[in-house]
């Protein structure tokens, strides 16, 4: 099996993996970071969302061999102490119920706010449409994204 070096959350992890192994399983089973979740295996639910070179991807359908040298960020890389404005907003709005999909929801939300600091409802719809939550936390996710956008705008002096 080929050897890949994955740069995850600023740290390098050498992994021996089948070229076609989805990045999800490399992250969970070979690297051992289990915050990224398996939900459907076919890019339908978004539970496996991570950032590749800053952009959100569905890691369940992204082969490890296609990562190349691009840096990966997982939920564990957002902040360990819940200090990221999106995490703070998730606490303030008490978003999670079962919590299983929330890593993916947060990764999609962080990516949205990075490229679009003032998202409209339609922007939120478009960015979050790929993330399923069976507990139905969508109304709170929407509120939390708006709250985080407000915090980020203040931080950036906008």
């Amino acid at each position, binding site marked *: 099996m080929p050897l890949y070096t994955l740069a995850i959350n600023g740290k390098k992890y050498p992994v021996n993996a089948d070229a076609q192994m989805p990045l999800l399983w490399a992250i969970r089973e070979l690297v051992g970071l289990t915050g990224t979740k*398996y939900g459907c295996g076919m890019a339908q639910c978004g539970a496996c969302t991570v950032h590749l070179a800053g952009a959100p991807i569905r890691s369940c359908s992204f082969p490890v061999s296609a990562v190349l040298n691009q840096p990966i960020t997982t939920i564990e890389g957002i902040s360990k102490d819940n200090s990221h404005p999106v995490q703070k907003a998730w606490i303030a709005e008490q978003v999670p119920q079962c*919590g299983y999909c929330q890593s993916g929801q947060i990764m999609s939300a962080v990516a949205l706010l990075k490229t679009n600091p003032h998202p409209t409802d339609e922007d939120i719809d478009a960015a*979050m449409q790929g993330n399923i939550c069976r507990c139905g936390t969508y109304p*709170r996710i929407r509120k939390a994204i708006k709250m985080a956008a407000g915090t980020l705008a203040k931080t950036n002096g906008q």
Partner: protein
Amino acid sequence: MKNSSELSRRKFIQQVSLSGIALTLGAYFPASGKTEVEIVNAQLVDKASTELLSWISIDTSGKVTIRNHRSEMGQGTFQAIPQMIAEELEVNLDQVTILFAPANPKKFGPQPQEGSFSIRGWYKQLLQVGASAREMLIGVAAKQWAVDPSDCYAQNGQVIHRSSGKKLGYGLLVEEASTLPPPQNVPLKSRKDYKIIGKSLPRQDIPLKINGTAQFGLDKKVPGMLYAVVERSPRFRGKVIRFDDSKTKAVAGVKNVFMVQRAVFGNLTEGVAVVANSLWAAMQGRKLLTVEWDDSGFDHLDSDQLASQMRANLGKPGPSQKFEAAWQTSAKKIDAIYETPYQSHSCMEPLNCIAHVQDNRIDIWGPIQEANWIQADLSDRMGIPKENVTVNMTFLGGGFGRKGFTDYPHEAALISKTMKAPVQVVWTREDDMRTGPFRTGAFYACKGGVDSTGQILAFQMITAAQWIGQEWSPKPYPDPEPPSYNNGNTEGMLHPYLKAIPHYSFGGVGTRAPIPVLWWRSVYASTNGFAAESFIDELAHLAGQDPLAFRRNHLPDKRYQDIVDQLEMISGWKSRGKNAGWGIAITECFSGICGHIVQVSRKADGKLKIDKVIALIDCGWYVNPDIIRAQVEGSIIMGLGAAIKHATTFKDGKAVEQNFNTYEMPRMTDTPEIEVHIMENDEKAGGVGEPGLPPFAPALCNAIFDLTGKRIRTLPFKLEDV
């Protein structure tokens, strides 16, 4: 706070030993109503084994640990149970460590996570646990100060002497407290004195669920663990004739391939397990496996055949002459058939379970709703004493009833037994969605009539469905279930209606099929409620009355009158405009009553849109209003999914929908504005997790009727088709 499931008993013992002593109160309340309180100190710990694990522990530094003995699948027991105990114990919840307790009916009483029961079933006993511990600690402090205990009170983890202002922390009192007999029947605080109950305190599990540290079943690892995936029969009762594992065994890492069973009620289903030293190897090996199935001896049903059977069954009960006679005398009468589909639970975390079977012991770890049942079931099936079966709960990535079953741990235990090693069995999304058990589809034949004053004179609802109870029946498929009449298939419907209706009749026919069925969030109320509250609406229109006022006229009890009044007020029902359609529905299940008002309108592009849902829940005494609001919001979205997004259908005896590309879930853009209100009253605690679901579909269809005059009687339907 630590991630509870990681703090093993070993570590706990260490913690106890370091601090010298811990007070542990276990309080399972047997039928006599006596409080069994056990004190365990450091000397007893090593002998005490799992007996240690009960609700409260305090170490000599004053650190408080409270155990949540129920599973946490999103509904909030991880917060609500400690919140109740902490109230009476007089400690701040943010200083408490919360741990999951394993299955132990001796310590915790029944632990099933079903029927919205965690609070309504046990709140008085759990409050008593906190109160007993508090009184023991107060007793010790009073003795040390040589004062009357009644001159002392507890606050913030300390006992305070009222007259002198002297204080002692719980940590300094716990050692002696552990030698005292626990007081019985301590008076509980009155609601007005609550400091933390009734408040929206932030959930203690949320910080773990936003940075990847919360441990779900799929995240759990134990040393030496192998991984298994199982190729299960695509038809529900197929048996393995033979399989070819030559290519599978050539995959590096695959260790064994063998036939494995799984008990689904009385039926032993079959599959072929692929076990490997990594999940990836097991999954790759499975792809190369071929299995030949014996699919004889049972029907290979299509959904439309199943529907025909259910429609035919609706006609099977002999007509009740008395009811028919009354119905015939109605000034105006109608009848209608309602149809609801099969549904998959589709928790976001697919099923999984770790089992480690050794000579005379079984250890289970996983996302589990039914800890006690699994303990008893495995003990029975595997011939191992119940006390040697340990069932450990992780966080659950959703449950909705599916994880309240014994099949997936049973299969894992059989695989572990063969492998003589701990094994994690992982279900793929497809395995999870196509294997079932499913919520049954249910069909309803309704008849009703109103008298000349517009009051309901006669109301009949006949159900045809696969009863969950039939799954236990020793009768082999396909014995027909005899018709039963006036048998009370009324779960979900408001019972006070029956006081106002002179002639009513309920009955049902169990439909037999090889499709396994199981409880699904709100169980029969999820379909009964649709038929009952749609038909009440039809009767309101038949009587020429306002649907909200019509309900008020037929709900004689004050509690229900208050709900209707409140719904009218919070929604502005009387002042609603003519360009929108408004629908009301109120249902009751698991001692929780919930009413929805759904508002729909047609947009400029001609499409129908759900603008807003206003919900009112009456769950009586409650703990955490924000968790209640979250549960009702989530129930509405799950109900919306079952009404307008998804269904499980069958073709040639197999489930058609296998992943989210065909089983379409509600997403962000499907989510209407939701407003949740909670009734304030002095009623006993009722259910929260499920009662918010059933009213959605009928309220939506009633709103669509209000706007368009079109009556929808079959779920699911597409909004764009209306």
